[in-house]
């Protein structure tokens, strides 16, 4: 049974705008799923529908087997949510804000746990500060501490590192890694591809309220991944010899570097033939490196492709 099971969820707002157009998505226990998508794709709406902030127009969602509408108590008990906006009561002390959330989720007071969460997020020294006295990054940490205060089994991180400095981003990744080891299921939305690449097991791409694909990160990169072979030449070339015209080659402007593009999933990469042809032409190679296409390149390609479909 998936930890989060989303079946045919549609959401139409009162104005008629359809934010989700029949979303199906299954998230397994203990995995980290990154939802990628441009602004306005429906990422936040989807999370809001799961967490009970917005009501889906149709479709069903279960968390841990519990329907989020009919059995909302059992379902929400399992869920922690770190919202995208920094929403904090300004006059409350950090520690009280975190205790409040734990109580709200029906859990008895546990100061040892709160202390460990605050320490883990480097907030312990700030525990008696009012939230309005904190910097933006610190406020973001408070939101995370609040979400963790009731020991959720599923954690939603909605754009967790938007506008956050490098240090906090690293800290956050560490926290996420720790949660993964505890078996917590994590769904994060982001438009920082590197974040998805660094953390996620699977990647879902959402655009205009539809899930375009969900796939294991590695296989996604491998399947769609083109590689580039970059060859530095011993002697610059003025132009590409005619014998090389069959290959997908680009010569750099100064003539010192050849770039060859190939598909790792193709039956033949053509590298062996290329090297043989080069040496037959008397072109000497000084150095070689290969580079995998990043998720970002894939993502941009995917969204553009579907953008053309829609147009």
């Amino acid at each position, binding site marked *: 049974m998936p930890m989060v099971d989303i079946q045919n969820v549609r959401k139409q707002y009162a104005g008629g705008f359809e934010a989700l157009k029949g979303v199906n998505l299954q998230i397994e226990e203990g995995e980290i799923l990154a939802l990628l998508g441009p602004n306005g794709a429906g990422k936040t709406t989807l999370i809001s529908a799961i967490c009970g902030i917005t009501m889906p127009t149709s479709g069903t969602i279960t968390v841990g087997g519990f329907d989020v509408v009919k059995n909302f108590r059992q379902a929400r008990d399992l869920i922690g949510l770190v919202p995208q906006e920094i929403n*904090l009561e*300004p006059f*409350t002390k950090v520690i009280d804000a975190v205790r409040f959330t734990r*109580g*709200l989720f029906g859990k008895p007071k546990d100061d040892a746990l709160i202390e460990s969460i605050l320490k883990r997020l480097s907030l312990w020294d700030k525990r008696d500060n009012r939230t309005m006295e904190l910097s933006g990054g610190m406020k973001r940490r408070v939101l995370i501490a*609040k979400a963790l205060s009731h020991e959720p089994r599923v954690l939603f991180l909605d754009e967790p590192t938007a506008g956050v400095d490098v240090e906090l981003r690293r800290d956050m990744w560490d926290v996420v890694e720790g949660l993964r080891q505890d078996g917590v299921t994590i769904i994060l939305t982001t438009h920082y591809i590197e974040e998805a690449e660094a953390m996620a097991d699977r990647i879902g791409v959402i655009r205009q309220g539809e899930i375009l694909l969900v796939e294991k990160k590695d296989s996604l990169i491998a399947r769609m991944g083109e590689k580039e072979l970059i060859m530095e030449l011993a002697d610059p070339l003025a132009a590409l010899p005619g014998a090389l015209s069959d290959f997908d080659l680009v010569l750099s402007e100064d003539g010192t570097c050849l770039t060859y593009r190939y598909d790792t999933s193709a039956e033949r990469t053509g590298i062996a033939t290329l090297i043989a042809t080069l040496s037959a032409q008397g072109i000497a190679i000084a150095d070689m490196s290969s580079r995998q296409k990043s998720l970002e390149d894939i993502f941009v390609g995917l969204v553009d492709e579907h953008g053309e479909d829609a147009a």
Partner: protein
Amino acid sequence: MNLYAIGAMYRSEMSRFFRTIMQSFISPVISTSLYFVVFGTAIGSRIDQVDGVSYGAFIVPGLIMLAVMGQATSNASFGVFFPKFTGTIYELLSAPVNFLEIVIGFVGAAATKALFIGAVILMTSFFFVDITIAHPLAMLAFLLLTCLSFALLGFIIGIWAKNFEQVQLVPMLVITPLVFLGGSFYSISMLPPVWQVTSRFNPVVYLVSGFRWSFFDQADVPVGLSLMAIAGFTGGCMVVIWWIFKTGWRIRS
């Protein structure tokens, strides 16, 4: 019942009250004292007695009602509006709590604060006038019901309001006039006949009258009618709140 959640909401609301304890406490004491000076002493010295009660004492129940209704409404409306304003309402919506628990937490806290202020004003009045309370239990019951029902009203206003102006609007434009015209400072029988009839449509008249009855054993309207009025008002507010949560009006899109 998620009792921990009710406790968390209640404590969080009360902590705002205690953070501003000076203004919560001092301002009703000062304004009540001013009322006693102006109405009780300056004007009251020219009014002999109302229904056999000295004017200074006569206005005490009205003064308490005036403050309690205003405080219960504004505390509850602000308490609910503030999370909407700061965005922290997401937490209430995504927590395993139902509407009844949210209402108990927020309305309970607002009613507690109003009750506290009502008690402070009553204590203050002992310094100015001699009062004996004829029906202490009924007095307490009226006070509690008023705190509760106006906190419920405030809760509705807080959800309805889209900005701070609207939060202030209803207490200023509706409640204050109704309370002033509701016999807080006079007996309805002192009015010309036309206004006596008109006053019957003012719900506050029934509350003030019933509350005053519990002090002096005399009332403008029968005490049973007062009880029915406040019970009806409380019930009406509860129905509206139930509808709000059922439809998600202005809270859950």
